[in-house]
């Protein structure tokens, strides 16, 4: 073996001491987590716990498919969809407005302030916002809508700001240099380049918000979650199973719809 290949092999083998260090750290952290929580996974794998798990699952079948309950589920599903759609739409509008200062277009002072606000909005989980909004707006789907809007505008504002920063500056600059107003230059020079991305982000968040909207009911903010919480606390497992199936169906449908829209967006001229 010649010297060069040996050197090459060495550099290939020892190419990244930091990588191995990081991986070792990660393993240590994972091990420490399990130790801190004193989780005993082997206990979960015994025959007895398997049997009790099966018994637990068996109680959920067959799901309640009676017409009356189906009607209730349809109403809950519609409410969930409405909460998520309105919440996401509000968030997308607010996010775009907040993204302008957060992308540094109005100076670094505004940038820092809006970044902090966006971080705050998104660091508070939807469920906590919902619990707060239930106090502010009363029980019901409106509280859920507000909660989703608040959290999601933090997330979307940050993503939109990143898209704005990464958008090519040339078209807008050309428009401004040929005499267009800055606002118009933004609408015709910058926005078209990032619209597919903004739409993709919004759809992606809508998808997540539908899942979230089902859950917000746990603190009284309407939708399928409220039904599930209610049925489970009454030990009505078959009804709970129907609600879970409805939630799954909702997610699958939205998944398919958003994939379809994304394909349309990617097609040239579509």
């Amino acid at each position, binding site marked *: 073996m010649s010297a060069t290949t040996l050197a090459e092999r060495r550099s290939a083998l020892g190419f990244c001491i930091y990588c191995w260090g990081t991986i070792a750290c990660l393993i240590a*952290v994972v091990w420490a987590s399990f130790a801190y929580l004193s989780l005993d996974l082997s206990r979960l794998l015994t025959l007895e716990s398997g049997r009790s798990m099966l018994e637990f699952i068996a109680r959920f079948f067959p799901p309640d498919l009676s017409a009356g309950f189906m009607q209730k589920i349809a109403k809950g599903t519609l409410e969930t969809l409405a909460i998520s759609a309105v919440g996401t739409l509000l968030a997308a509008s607010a996010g775009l407005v907040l993204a302008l200062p957060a992308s540094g277009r109005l100076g670094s002072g505004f940038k820092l302030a809006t970044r902090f606000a966006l971080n705050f909005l998104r660091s508070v989980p939807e469920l906590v916002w919902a619990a707060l909004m239930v*106090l502010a707006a009363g029980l019901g789907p409106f509280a859920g809508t507000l909660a989703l809007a608040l959290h999601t505008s933090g997330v979307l504002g940050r993503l939109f700001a990143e898209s704005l920063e990464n958008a090519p500056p040339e078209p807008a600059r050309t428009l401004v240099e040929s005499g267009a107003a800055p606002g118009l230059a933004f609408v015709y020079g910058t926005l078209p380049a990032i619209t597919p991305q903004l739409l993709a982000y919004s759809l992606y968040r809508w998808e997540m918000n539908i899942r979230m909207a089902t859950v917000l009911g746990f603190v009284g903010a309407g939708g399928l979650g409220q039904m599930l919480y209610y049925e489970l606390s009454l030990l009505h497992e078959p009804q709970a199973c129907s609600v879970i199936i409805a939630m799954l169906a909702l997610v699958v449908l939205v998944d398919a719809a958003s994939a379809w829209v994304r394909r349309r967006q990617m097609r040239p001229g579509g």
Partner: protein
Amino acid sequence: MNLPPTRQSLRDPNAPARATWALIAVLLLWPLLLVAEFRPAELFDARNLKVMGGFLGQFFPPNLGGEFLALALKATVETLAMATAGIALAMLLAVPLGLALSHSLSISRIGPGPGRGVGEALRALARLALLLLRGIPEIVWALLLVRAFGLGPAAGVLAIAVTYGGMLGKVYSEILESGDTRPARVLLELGSGRLMAFFYGLLPGSAQELASYTVYRWECAVRASVIMGFVGAGGLGQLMDQSMKMLNGGEVSTILIIFLLLVLLADAISNAVRSTLA
């Protein structure tokens, strides 16, 4: 030939499409607003204002008493540990499923031969399993698992493992298919096994994306494990739930500040890990 712009050529060619979409949006939105009981006036209802005002008034100053702070810090560490352990288990679930799902590692797709139908059937089954896992929100899993395993962080960890396992598995397979799959294909065609084709053909090109997505999901899991507490799975959420039910604004604002710091910390950690793995 340069013609002066006419009225016709100055018109936005997209105007009809834009108008149609706007009309459809308005028509769709109106019933949605009704169903969501969108009534902003309720925010300014005197009774609601009083409750919320009193609650928010207590936010300042936050409760920074030693005893409560110690409790909150313990809950914070528990939250982080739940997220980390959950994501580790999720990866155990997601890596095999993601590899099984990825078309770029399919030998039967390369050429005519037996086993293609079986492969496709297995792949469809794996895809269905992942869909079931991630289609049910983590807090619902937590609620169900709390009833199966009792109160405590175990239910939360397993709920994260199940849900995020489903998400990671799907995205892993998508990442493995979206990059340059030719090296893996060449390796498979030359007779290497699937695992070797993955390690030498796919992993070098997609390791960074896989790692950074996993770290991003860890960030999400930190937020999710906060929420788990609301159904009794320990961590900061449980503390928050208690303070919220007692309308103790000082404690709630302390926990909110910890949330903010936690997200910033998770952000910083994930950035550091991602840049190291780059």
